[in-house]
């Protein structure tokens, strides 16, 4: 501030104001760092537990760093990787196919719902809304899938019932409705069919929202456990999250394996090694697609 006299800097109220501002800003950063650390802390504890020697772990308990370093848990997983690799394959298959099919099924529907000229638009919108406000509950859904559709113990049970979702449909419909309709109408006058308008104009223009929704759908499939909990008994079809749930109480897949006879199984660190192996991909996923996640949460919040 050139107008301020420099000689009395010590008593200058303007400097005091700036100092206060600096202090409060530093304090706020401190709170930010604290909260971020709290959010990340359990992950550090898990990584530490997975690298701690089993005896030290049961003696000293969990900590933020391994007192006695050991990679025995990871060694063991490398020795008998079949189960976890198969679960990875199941989860990747479900995630990739589920996300693609979900968008392929929902995007055209959302587009049709966004078109003003579409005659039965209101009827179909109500058709979707009704599924969002009323459901038959778990039991009829369970019986239908298990006893009538015979989807239990198939990969499809983790994909097909979850392909269409009312909330995602509404978000997609709003994003299509927000496109400049003149462009779509112009394409129509030029002789483009509706499918062509959808694939060559509407989808590229709505791509950011589609990507955000696609990432959310993918995350949902990555974290899938509910269909497995209800319908999957065949251990060849366990998705990752369900495998992780199973080993909470049952380490048989490791202890009963002929390859590990004679080795004492580090049960606690092994569990946390699995947590790390299953949690880390999501961490990277989030860091890379942070922008889309935030956008997705925002869209979900304003039009849920």
């Amino acid at each position, binding site marked *: 501030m050139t107008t301020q006299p420099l000689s009395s800097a010590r008593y200058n109220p303007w400097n005091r104001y700036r100092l206060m501002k600096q202090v409060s800003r530093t304090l706020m950063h401190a709170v930010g760092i604290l909260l971020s650390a709290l959010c990340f802390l359990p992950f550090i504890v898990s990584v530490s537990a997975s690298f701690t020697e089993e005896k030290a772990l049961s003696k000293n308990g969990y900590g933020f760093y391994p007192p006695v370093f050991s990679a025995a848990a990871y060694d063991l997983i490398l020795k008998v990787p079949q189960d976890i690799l198969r679960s990875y394959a199941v989860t990747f298959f479900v995630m990739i196919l589920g996300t693609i099919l979900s968008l392929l099924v929902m995007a055209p529907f959302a587009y049709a719902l966004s078109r003003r000229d579409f005659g039965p638009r209101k009827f179909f919108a109500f058709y979707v809304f009704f599924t969002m406000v009323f459901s038959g509950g778990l039991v009829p859904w369970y019986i239908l899938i298990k*006893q009538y559709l015979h989807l239990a113990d198939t990969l499809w049970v983790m994909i097909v019932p979850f392909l269409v979702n009312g909330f995602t449909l509404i978000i997609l419909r709003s994003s299509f409705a927000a496109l400049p309709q003149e462009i779509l109408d112009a394409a129509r006058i030029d002789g483009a069919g509706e499918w062509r308008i959808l694939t060559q104009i509407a989808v590229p223009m709505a791509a950011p929202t589609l990507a955000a929704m696609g990432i959310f759908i993918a995350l949902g499939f990555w974290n899938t456990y509910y269909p497995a909990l209800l319908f999957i008994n065949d251990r060849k079809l366990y998705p990752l999250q369900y495998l992780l749930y199973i080993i909470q109480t049952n380490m048989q897949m490791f202890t009963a394996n002929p390859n590990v006879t004679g080795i004492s199984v580090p049960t606690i660190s092994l569990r946390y090694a699995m947590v790390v192996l299953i949690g880390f991909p999501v961490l990277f996923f*989030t860091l890379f697609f942070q922008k889309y996640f935030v956008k997705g949460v925002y869209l979900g919040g304003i039009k849920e």
Partner: protein
Amino acid sequence: MIQLTESPAADLHQQRRLPEGGRVPFYARLWRFLRKNGAWLSMCAPSVILLFIFSYLPIYGIVIAFKNYKAGRGIWGSEWIGFKNFEFLFTTDTAIRTVRNTVILNLIFLVTGTIAALLIAFLLYELYGSFLMKFYQSLMFFPNVLSWVIVSYFVFAFLNTETGLINNALEKYLAGYKQILWYQKADAWPWILMIVNLWKGAGAGSVIYLAGMLAINPEYYESAAIDGASRWQQRWHITLPLLRPLLMIQILLALRGIFSADFGLFFFVPNHMNSPQLYATIDVIDTFVYRSLVKLGNVGMAAAAGLFQATVGFVLVMLCNWIIRRIDPDYALF
């Protein structure tokens, strides 16, 4: 039938040279409808079929709640027993307990979650634009993308009796401390779940409020600051009143679902199947239905509880939607 000249049917008469005054045959109207809407209808078909199978057929299955369901005899073969399942359900303590737990815990989650999300949004707003703010936001967002199974392992690392961080720390720094068996302490679990829920959801919950705050014209704050308003006064007297519509909507949206619990949170984090001693405080409708169906095999009661939940939930949704529409129609479901 009187045909006006502008009506689509009149067009049809001209195009297809149908006799004047004659009724447009059904097949012609259908053909015209299909020709106009066919592409859109084909876009709708896959979703409509999937929704029909997985959302509408189960609604048809609510009759199970009024039957003595036997898997071998199918839905229609099982005998009707009227409201017996409901009578059985509501004469046990379980029904009242689960409904009470569901509503109370959801209310606790709603209040604490909203306050935490607002505070985080205030913080991120103050630091908006700095590189570190993005970093904080990333880290606080991270718990939201994890599955409840992973979170349950995190909680276990803190709470298990012999090796858990909390017991260990308290033992070290608190003389005469006796280890607490957290996984059997029913009174503590509503608060444990509240903290876990905050930990997972607050960062993501702040996104919507931060966006709302960024939409507020900063001139309001500038003029308030000139008048001597402190930061908290600005938040209280300017930000909150301006965020009120958004806040109301978010609260109403959450109230819609107050009868259904987040299954993963209640199932995995307290290790539900192996901790029946915690049911008094944290058994909710969703876990009860699951347990009755899969573990106890009491299909009729599970169906009755599910139908009760769906019906009350439906009334709540309609009510909240009606209020939301009066505040801001853009946010209403319909």
